[in-house]
């Protein structure tokens, strides 16, 4: 199913999860457009597409930015099914959001039924070091327990945003998916060129 005609770049789907207000959207926008949005506006769901070169091959990445609020949980589930990689974000200034990662992890594992699903634990807001309330050790411990990489980022200063790609390697090909979600954005509007034709190719392929 994931095999696409040679002419069409491979498509990977990455989903951002985490409690409300931890900075999922901020991270996503930083990756996509190199911008930092100061004001908080809860997301319902947003999807972005980006083309990146990975191991010399051009691939497309769909990033879905989900709602942290439980109100939209039903909508979220529909997306989880097709997600291939997950970025679980929490804020290092908010222990509650760190606790919530446990729940998100379980939810994802339930939907995907795969312990090895590409998964990345992300502690955001590392620029607010003085307000840190989740100790680094606890984060690392949890990541080790889950056997997933852990990384601390700051959507504001773009700290580590590009470093994430060195984070270690979950099984291919997905590790590249996740990492590439973090590549510094060079290509902006891929969608117009490829989005539609890609879908058609995909459909005719599956029939």
């Amino acid at each position, binding site marked *: 199913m994931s095999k696409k005609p040679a002419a069409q770049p491979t498509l990977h789907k990455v989903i951002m999860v985490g409690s409300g207000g931890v900075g999922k959207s901020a991270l996503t926008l930083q990756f996509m457009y190199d911008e930092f949005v100061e004001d908080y506006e809860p997301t319902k769901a947003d999807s972005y597409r980006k083309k990146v070169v990975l191991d010399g091959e051009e691939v497309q990445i769909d990033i879905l930015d989900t709602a942290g609020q439980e109100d939209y949980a039903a909508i979220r589930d529909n997306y989880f099914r097709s997600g291939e990689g997950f970025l679980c974000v929490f804020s290092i200034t908010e222990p509650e959001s760190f606790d919530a990662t446990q*729940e998100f992890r379980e939810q994802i594992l339930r939907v995907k039924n795969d312990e090895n699903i590409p998964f990345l634990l992300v502690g955001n807001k590392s620029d607010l070091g003085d307000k840190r309330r989740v100790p680094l050790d606890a984060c690392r411990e949890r990541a080790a327990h889950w056997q997933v990489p852990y990384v601390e980022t700051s959507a504001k200063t773009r700290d580590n945003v590009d470093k994430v790609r060195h984070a270690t390697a979950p099984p291919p090909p997905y590790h590249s998916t996740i990492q590439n979600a973090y590549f510094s954005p060079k290509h902006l509007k891929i969608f117009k060129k490829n989005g539609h034709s890609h879908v058609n190719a995909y459909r005719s392929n599956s029939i």
Partner: protein
Amino acid sequence: MDFESPDVEKDFPGLYASETGRKSNESDFSDGGDHEKPSKKDLLGRRKDKKESKKDRGYAALEGESSPEEDTDTKSPSKNKKTKSFKFPTKSKEKREKSRDKEKVLEDPAKHKELNEKEKKKEKEREKEREKEKKGKEKKEKLKEKDKEKEEKAKFKLESKEKLKDDKKEKVKEKEKDKVKEKEKDKVKEKEKDKVKEKEKDKVKEKDKDKKDKKLTKMPSTVTSGVPFEEIFTLGVALPIFGVPLQQSVERSRCHDDTALPLVVRDSIDYLQAHGLKSNQIYRTEPDKIKLQQLRKLFTDRGPTFPYHWDVPVACAMLKTFISELPDSILTQELHGQFEQATAMAEPQREATMMALISKLPACNHSLLGWLMRHFESVVANEQTNHVNIQTIATAMGPALNMSLNLLTYFITKADKLFPEVRLTKYVPPLLSIPADFPETANEISEELRKQESLLNQIHAEMHAGFITSARDQQLWEAQRIVTQLKRKLRSVQKSVEPNAAPVQQASVEEKQEDEPIRRNSQPSEPFTTEVEAKISQTVSDAFRGSKESPNTSDPTFPVEFEDNFDFKPVETKEITETDISTEQVKEKPKFTEKELKVLRLQLENAEYLQLKSLLQAKINSEQFEIVKLRSHVALKNKQEGNIQASKENKENYTPEEQELRQKLIKENAMLEQKRLSLVNQIFQERVACIQLKIELAMKEIMSKS
């Protein structure tokens, strides 16, 4: 069929793990497409025979015979297990079935029955699957609940447990209640499904026919292949749009531009309005049956239609078919009689009664009636060229509409008075991608945004109904991306319009409302304070409701609110947008109309409100911080004073110290609330002062410019 199996398994892991028998079944299911192929061939081979034996009668006979079987099957789920291990029919099975059909003389219908049975079984399998999904979801919910409980316990060990526990219990109870309700709903739905089944069966047969028709006419009907065959087949059968209540039909096949019409009606009327008004075939000529069936299938399967699918008689017949298959009258069962009675009244009274009755109709009925009558009105208006008068329409559509000639005549002649709000505009479906030259005006962007969001909702609804395929997933992500794209565009347009207020511009009504649950999430342990917070944020959002409308002059997402509050007419809204986009335009004009003054005033007000908003936000944040501090105080005191054992184990008894502390906390919170309320009051006063200042400023500015 590689698009089925891998996904389904991944998606519902819990299900298949629990039932090992599922696997084999699954492969059967995914083979479904293969089932079809031989059947199609069969059909093709036996086309001639069927014609001789007069298909319609043959089907009718079949239907009567096969329905009781199906009913028993659906009523007792235990029987389903028999069909579970259903495999591609072998010869022996064919023989068995043939022997069962001994009374049938013709071999042909027997085979047909077999086909029908195959399809029925497939349907059952699908239903089973859906049921399992539901069960799975429920299980998940239960698990979630447990997890939540555990986490909550862990979190709030240090805090006063009594209240928490009660809350939890209540929550759990509520959730359980909800669950029970949901289950009940599901049951009801299933019953409905059973009812609809009879009709679905008809549809299955029609599909058989259609397949044959396709081969006959060799039309490029593969256009439905936007979605894989298996998939549309399922959706079309399980959620039909013909022969179901109007409301359902609208929900399943909606026009995404807020007209409560099923797509089939809208498209038919659109076509007739564009191509039929001057045609002498309109409401007169019998349609090509094959073409009609084909079109009907396309609508049932939610496939796209193309101009070559349409002609005037087919469009008329499509409309008629849809209406005549509605289970209820357009005028609804309760009101139909009253409508007919009202036609006998004397004039001034009649119109008032009619208006009153029409306003009682459900939204979708109202919309359908309005569109039909406005359409008929325009058909009759072209009587000179198309030679259609009310009598002709009554002959063609009367039986389907089930209206007396008098009533129909009244509706058509008074259509413009009865349905002044209905405009027969052509439907433009949501875009599949955003073209590079997409208009950059806020109005058009948000109009498209609404369509896309409506589409997105429909996809979500279909997925929740259990129709999950990779194609739909794909569609979901596409639509979501377009929505995101449009939102960004809209935002940037708004920013460029009002660069001063840019950073806070994005604040929307939604944000305000959604701030609340977040805060709740972060402090679930203190219902009292959250309540206060809720109050505050409510007051805040109330305070800003006015302001939010004003920046949104260029944000037609809330045009209704806007119009409501300011009594603007659409024309004026347009004007506002214009002035928004180019304030230079305003400067060029020597004199200012009242409206423009208003606009300027609103803009200034807006900026002021946005500032206030951030201020309030900051205040709320500090309040939150205070709450956290208080909480930790209480926790500390609890530890120091209260004996830990008592607080941990003897939860049922309050120690006097704890009681005291609780009282203290409550008092403190009450004080906090008062504090906040006074703050809010102050802010209100400030706000009023600010508005006045700003208005003065604006006036001065304008005067100096002019």
